[in-house]
């Protein structure tokens, strides 16, 4: 037996059909999450981050026409489980928080009642016990005066507080994996920081693994243990935090890191990446990044580079990993 693995995605592909056109949103990804790990999935819009997370929970919309591969969670393939078993898993073993907490809270129900629902369903608590548990959770996520918060309606909370209610709901049954889909993107700096600290604290205190989906490399650099970078439906680089930021290998990662503005770069030109992110409907053949890549050669246009191990824990899908990029004139 090797090390224990919590979630293992193997060769997952998801394809939608819309207006008679096939849209490959995820094109064969491998992803492994260890128990208690903070795993960040980074990518731009349309890279397939959210589709990946929704397929873990089997919450994909109905226009998915092809779903291949396997998602092993504690030795069960989530894609093969019955809907009933899945329902028992969601919220209990794997739960999720989203970007806009307001959209996922029922405006006509008290916050406490909504959080209580999962506890009563999954753990069979009585109403009284569940109420106590909710107050405990509210305390844990930093809502002052939990008794009062229990009877509040969502509109009486600020966005940051709503996100805390969502987090309370998500951790109510002690899941072993929390999927966080851009939970801080619409929040202000101060609140963002509190939410990240709350997640880090929960991860540490209850050994919960987090799959954190974002495009914000600042947050990733601060909080993540392992980072996987997605581009056009594929993982193109995956590495522990230290390796990724000190020695990025894929040209996309390297250009991306170089294009972030900062104080230190005042007066210099930003790197930038030419071209645009490909539309999922027409992803270029070969390496999807080749039209924008300064290192691209004939080989890149014809063959898809596999995600291979370069050094311990560091995987990269490029024919020329780490090759020097001459900066733009």
């Amino acid at each position, binding site marked *: 037996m090797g090390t224990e693995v919590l979630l293992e995605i193997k060769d997952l592909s998801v394809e939608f059909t819309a207006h008679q056109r096939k849209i490959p949103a995820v094109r064969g990804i491998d992803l492994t999450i260890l128990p208690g790990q903070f795993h960040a999935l980074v990518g731009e819009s349309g890279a397939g981050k959210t589709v990946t997370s929704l397929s873990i929970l089997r919450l994909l919309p109905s226009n998915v026409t092809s779903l291949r591969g396997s998602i092993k969670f504690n030795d069960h393939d989530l894609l093969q489980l019955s809907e009933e078993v899945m329902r028992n898993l969601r919220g209990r073993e794997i739960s999720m928080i989203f970007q806009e907490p307001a959209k996922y809270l029922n405006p006509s129900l008290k916050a406490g009642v909504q959080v209580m629902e999962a506890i009563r369903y999954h753990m069979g608590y009585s109403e009284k016990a569940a109420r106590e548990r909710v107050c405990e959770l509210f305390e844990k996520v930093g809502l002052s005066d939990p008794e009062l918060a229990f009877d509040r309606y969502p509109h009486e909370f600020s966005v940051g507080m709503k996100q805390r209610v969502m987090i309370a709901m998500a951790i109510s049954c002690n899941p072993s994996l929390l999927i966080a889909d851009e939970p801080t993107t619409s929040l202000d700096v101060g609140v963002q920081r509190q939410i990240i600290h709350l997640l880090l604290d929960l991860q540490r205190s209850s050994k919960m693994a987090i799959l954190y989906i974002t495009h914000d490399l600042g947050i990733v650099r601060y909080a993540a243990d392992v980072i996987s970078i997605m581009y056009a439906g594929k993982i193109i680089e995956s590495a522990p935090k230290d390796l990724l930021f000190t020695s990025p290998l894929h040209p996309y990662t390297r250009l991306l890191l170089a294009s972030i503005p900062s104080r230190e*770069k005042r007066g210099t030109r930003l790197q930038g990446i030419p071209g645009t992110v490909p539309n999922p409907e027409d992803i270029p053949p070969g390496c999807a990044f080749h039209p924008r890549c300064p290192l691209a050669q004939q080989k890149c246009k014809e063959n898809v580079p596999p995600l291979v191990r370069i050094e311990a824990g560091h995987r990269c899908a490029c024919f020329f990993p780490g090759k020097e990029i001459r900066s733009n004139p």
Partner: protein
Amino acid sequence: MKPLLRVENLTKIYPGSGIIKRYPVKALDNISFTVEEGDTFGLVGESGSGKTTLARCILFLEPPTSGKVYYGNLCLNDIPWYHWRKLRSRMQIIFQDPNSALNPRLPIRRSLEEGLINLGYSRKQRNDTIRKILDQVGIPYNQVDWYPHEFSGGQKQRIIIARALSMNPKFIVLDEPVSNLDVSIQAGIINLLMDLKKEFNLTYIFISHDLDLIAYLSTKIGVLKGGQLVEVGKAEDVLAHPLHPYTRFLLENPLSFHSRIQPWETLAKETI
């Protein structure tokens, strides 16, 4: 350098909504600052701090409740309405969402030439101008009859920049011009804006919530919080010696990409 824009004691109060009792909202509270010619005035603040309201008040898209705005020696408060059209071409604004700033039912040529028609350009002059500015922002001229949905977000933002530029403005207010774009596209737009600034000798008011970005490109920085300008000064000074605790808080954000603070250093200290 001579001041191009001067804002004096600008206040904006919204009457507020409600049937029984109205609670007025003070969106901007007594704001004063000067923008000199050639400056990039970076305005940073969180959502709801009044950044966009300030942008709109400066351009009189929304008249301020009190306070004055001077453009050169001209007091904008006293301009009669029939002079505004001419003046507007001098000052342009670029909004955050490129998708809603172009009319989806018009090919971009029509959107681009509208302002030029107002200025009384002939057809040939219009075509020449459009060709020139599209080239400047990196959109091929043969796409001029395309509709907005055929362009990506970054390209749309380029077209909007071209439209603002075609008026030969002296200064441009940029309200979060890259916030809706993908990270890999942002740098290209920022580089373009900086190139254009140099070439056309423009003055920018650059609004963003991203302090890293403001710190990268501003010559002067203003920090807005709750409708008040809590700190304003030369970029170097504000970055090196922030005076207001809020500015310091923003500058020390551990979630900034360039921060080297590690979670365990702050985790114990922060109250959760």
